[in-house]
């Protein structure tokens, strides 16, 4: 039972990170039907910015949690700027072009950003400081769920609640939903759709950066390639949940996280990926649009 709970919480932690990144894929796809392949790189850049900020903060003698918050905030700001620029430079000029063009542009941006960080930093793994301390009050349950996991879970839950409020309650959120449902009609009620698309990239990038910082301080190392792997997993989660669906991304992330964790724990960690992608194939066979995905209606 203890082992089960341990796997449950480690799966939940992983899954919530996948969900956080998957949200960026799914929100962008929902609005412009583009798979933003460079999204994983934004996650990676978030982690690198946090590493640099953490380094500077350590010199000034700040402590763990305050560094984590400061590094997180700056990483998010940077990532938002990258996301905004990415859309403006690589996707906006291709609006209205055949669908393959922005897709190729996305892959190009992914390769560009990876190599940019590779050249600007290094190809080696860099140690990332463990910024999350072991809380005393977690002592009794530490064998099931550790302090870093708790911080990750609390952060992702709070972030998702804020995102939900933004989308459900605010004027911008309503405009985002309207744009997703019928872009030209949104224009006809006065929505500046370009601004909404920028906003979507900014929000998605911010979420990815939060994920990047949390994972980096949990795992304890970063390199230029971490965005690719995290991106593939999160993209899988988004497809699993039904690409375009926001609750779908969260569910997809959690299902994937648990599948990996339980497969590694009960079968073998060598078969972890075989099992998860097997699950993906199975679910997509039964539900081609994903768990919560709707078959897209043809627009007239």
């Amino acid at each position: 039972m203890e082992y089960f709970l341990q796997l449950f919480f480690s799966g939940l932690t992983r899954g919530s990170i996948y969900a956080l990144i998957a949200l960026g894929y799914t929100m962008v796809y929902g609005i412009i039907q583009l798979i933003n392949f460079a999204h994983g790189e934004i996650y990676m850049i978030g982690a690198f910015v946090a590493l640099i900020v953490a380094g500077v903060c350590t010199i000034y003698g700040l402590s763990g949690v305050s560094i984590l918050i400061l590094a997180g905030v700056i990483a998010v700001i940077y990532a938002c700027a990258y996301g905004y620029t990415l859309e403006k430079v690589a996707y906006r000029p291709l609006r209205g072009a055949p669908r393959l063009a922005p897709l190729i542009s996305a892959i190009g941006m992914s390769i560009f950003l990876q190599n940019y960080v590779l050249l600007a930093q290094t190809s080696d793994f860099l140690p990332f400081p463990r910024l999350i301390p072991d809380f005393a009050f977690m002592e009794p349950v530490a064998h099931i769920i550790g302090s870093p996991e708790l911080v990750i879970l609390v952060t992702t839950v709070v972030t998702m609640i804020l995102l939900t409020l933004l989308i459900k309650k605010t004027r911008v959120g309503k405009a985002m939903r309207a744009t997703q449902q019928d872009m030209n009609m949104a224009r006809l009620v006065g929505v500046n759709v370009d601004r909404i698309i920028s906003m979507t990239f900014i929000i998605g990038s911010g979420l990815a950066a939060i994920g990047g910082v949390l994972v980096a301080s949990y795992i304890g190392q970063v390199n230029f390639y971490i965005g690719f792997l995290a991106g593939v997993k999160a993209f899988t989660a988004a497809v699993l949940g039904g690409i375009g669906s926001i609750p779908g991304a969260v569910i997809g992330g959690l299902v994937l996280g648990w599948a990996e964790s339980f497969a590694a724990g009960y079968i073998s960690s060598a078969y972890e990926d075989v099992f998860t992608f097997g699950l993906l194939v199975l679910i997509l066979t039964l539900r081609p649009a994903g768990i919560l995905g709707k078959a897209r209606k043809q627009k007239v």
Partner: protein
Amino acid sequence: MLKIQNIQTFYGNIQALKDVSIEIEEGEIVALIGANGAGKTTTLMSICGISPPRSGDILLDGDSIKGVAADKIVQKGIVQVPEGRRIFPDLTVQENLEMGAFLRKNKRLIQQDLNYVMTLFPILEKRRTQLGGTLSGGEQQMLAISRALMARPRVLLLDEPSLGLAPLIIKQIFEIIRKINKESNTTIFLVEQNANQALKLADRGYVMENGRITLVDSADKLLANDDVRKAYLGI
């Protein structure tokens, strides 16, 4: 107030509008009739900046709005009820109406207009929290008109508001259009295949064929015109 001057609109290489000119005076109801594929919807989408014309000009109160972004055109007071209603399916009725008032800031006036459209179409009050996509065709048309009214339009463009509706509901909708025109002096540009009803409501009418305007006259004269009667009134 709205002057369309010799516009040519293309979809890729296909020319949908050929040298179209239309003039609409303040407070008028003007009808545009024509068969399927004539270019009626394209005309409205050209005015609204969704399919901007390649050449020609569109003037609102003498100022060109050609090439102006669609959201800025709404800001200037030209608002469309599009073909097929295009209700936001996963927004509630209330949210759909709020989207209609997207560019307005005064909460009190928005609330006042919300109450106004609910008295115009009481069924919307009952459906307030329901998703737009779950409404019937007639209810969706009422919502689409109400959503447009929430923007307080100076010029209201309507694209086939009677399409697919029962005669009784069509009658109700046309009465409301007349009321909107009379009560708030809203200029109306009405696209219809239901030529009889449209011309009875309108002051003047235009007939469009294959992307060109072929006839312009007062609505009464068009109703009496033999060619129009044969082609569009089925008489």
